[in-house]
């Protein structure tokens, strides 16, 4: 990861103003670039904004958007909003957990899949809703989930 440090520098350069309210946009930029927040990112943000790293970490752990381990090649987002919950999101989650052997916030060991459970994407008329790398699947059941995951696995190989 030689260019990891230089990519961090590029992002820091986009935020020349040393102000506390640049902290969240900076973290978001890191999350978007790398898919997760690394120790180097936290340390460099801390020194860039003259903030103790405990504050940067404390803030990042508060919010849903920031994760601390790299995402999988296929990032699965499952909506667990009210309507989707009623529509059977719980069973979909069980199925995904069984198939991939990971829970919310984790990545499979081979780095292929990661799982995020969101609490309401806002498409309640189409429940239950699942997205893989931004492609949406709605109104699905357990069988469709099995097929979808299988398809992505095959694509990867």
């Amino acid at each position, binding site marked *: 990861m030689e260019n990891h440090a230089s990519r961090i520098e590029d992002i820091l350069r986009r935020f020349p103003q040393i102000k506390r309210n640049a902290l969240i946009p900076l973290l978001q930029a890191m999350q978007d670039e790398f898919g997760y927040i690394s120790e180097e990112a936290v340390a460099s943000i801390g020194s860039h904004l003259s903030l*103790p790293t405990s504050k940067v970490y404390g803030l990042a*752990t508060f919010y849903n958007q920031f994760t601390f381990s790299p995402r999988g090649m296929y990032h699965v987002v499952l909506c667990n909003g009210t309507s989707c919950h009623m529509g059977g999101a719980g069973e979909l989650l069980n199925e995904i957990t069984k198939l991939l052997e990971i829970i919310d916030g984790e990545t499979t060991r081979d780095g292929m899949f990661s799982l995020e459970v969101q609490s309401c994407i806002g498409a309640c008329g189409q429940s239950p809703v699942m997205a893989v790398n931004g492609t949406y699947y709605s109104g699905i059941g357990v069988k469709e989930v099995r097929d979808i995951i299988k398809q992505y696995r095959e694509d990867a190989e």
Partner: protein
Amino acid sequence: MGIKLEVNGRTIEAGKGETILSALNRHGMHVPTICSMKDLSPSGACRMCVVEVEGHDKLVPACSFPIEESMKILSHSPRVLRARKTNVELLLSNHPDDCLYCERNGSCELQSLSEDLNIRERRIPGKRSPYKIDKSGPAIVRDPAKCILCGRCVRICEEIMSTSAFDFAHRGNELRISTTFEKSLNYSSCTSCGQCLIACPTGALIEHVQFPELEESIHAPDKVVVAQLSPALTISVAEQLGFKPGTDLKGLIIAVLRRYGFDFVFESSFGGDLMIVEQAEVFEERRKEGRDYPLITSSCPAWIHFIEQYYPELLPELSPLKSPHQLTGTLIREWLPGQLDRGKKEIVSVVITSCTAAKTEARRVEMTQDGVPVVDMVLTTRELVRMIKLSGLDLEQLEPELPDAPFYSSGSAGKLTGVAGGEVEATLRSLYHKATGKEISPSKLHRFRIHKSFREMTVMAGKREIRMGSVSGLANAVALLEEIKSGKRKLDLLEVMACPDGCINGGGQAIPVDERVNRTRSKAIYDLDNASSIHSAHGCPSLQRFYHDFLGEPGGKLSRDLLYTVYTKREVML
């Protein structure tokens, strides 16, 4: 004053802009608080101080709600008491049932709240959050399972000590106090100042208790166990042992320690005198060189940790001397074996002090000789009190005893180092003598004894002008150092103490019951100084003899070899 309000049916007066809590406290009405901190803005987080106010349909936090004219308050109605009781029951439902085994058994605020609110059953069962104890550092042990998330430690570390070794992380019932990436404390920027221990209401933050390890050595025939007592220590234990607050119990403590099994009991104030004399030499050398920045003292281990991490560019201005207890420890290790015809490794050197950072300092590579730590163990005031209670000795039936020669102080200069501003005051006495050959009357410097976090004074020593300053509390130190760096303030000598008010408020001290404790302690030290007949370090016969017999000249080769050390830039790992 002038605003009238009604509390529990009675009319009281309060001032504009006052909070309900301060008005109630002034009139003797006690309302429990957890997250409230003196001198810091109210947080309103714990909801223990809630009161009923007419016109508000929900309960209102007294600590942050401002008073208004004709307010009607009920501070102890059934509704309010029920809310407070439920709050504490909720805390207890997520707290280990470990009271009897806990370090804070008897001094825990959660225990007192539970007692005061008459909680008699485990009404709310439930799962407890699982956390691991962090014993990584030599000084501070964190047990997050006992944390009630009051946030005092976070605020002290951030707002008073400018360090922020940890902060709140995660959210909801995952909320916890954590270092960056949940690493162990020794990985973080923690300076071991221990102010968090003093602030913590429960046993979530305690010091690394080491005195049980003494058991092996203390009665071993092949070991010589020596102790040195710090000046702030001896005037701080009176309340714990049943004496009038502020009484100096040095003589009785020495008596107990000898009976406990210590072979020698010395005083760290010997090292204090030594440091002052050597520091005066360093000051002279710098004066001849002509430096822009002041000579900054190096007697506070937490300050050293801080400057190495955050102000490495100021290291050249730092006094090259070790701290008083390390100075004493070094000489104990150097001189005592020869006197007793024993090997260096047979000495077990123990420092008993009010400082928790000294525990970490004793592990520094610079504080070792041939790979062996100069000081084997550092014990805090709290540990000493436990040892005394364990010994079963009744202090009132003992006679006070004197410390052992040669490492004791017959004067009061070394003792002054226990209070903020004291080191500078004592150093100035020696600087004055160096400049004029005469002794300055101590009362001339008493103006310096104001109770403020930063004090400065300019003194004429003959034709020389010496600008002296003293700052305590690392956040205050940061503000001052920025002024010095930018040239806005010029000083010749600066004392920095990490703990607000100095060592009398060190991390190892007994948990204060109220805010007047520090004043009592500083007054006790000043009283000792006023009553002393030898006010200067250089005039101390005990020290003069040691120079004559062993060390040679202040600033001489032996001093530089043994008493000087190197402070270097330290990277914060995360």
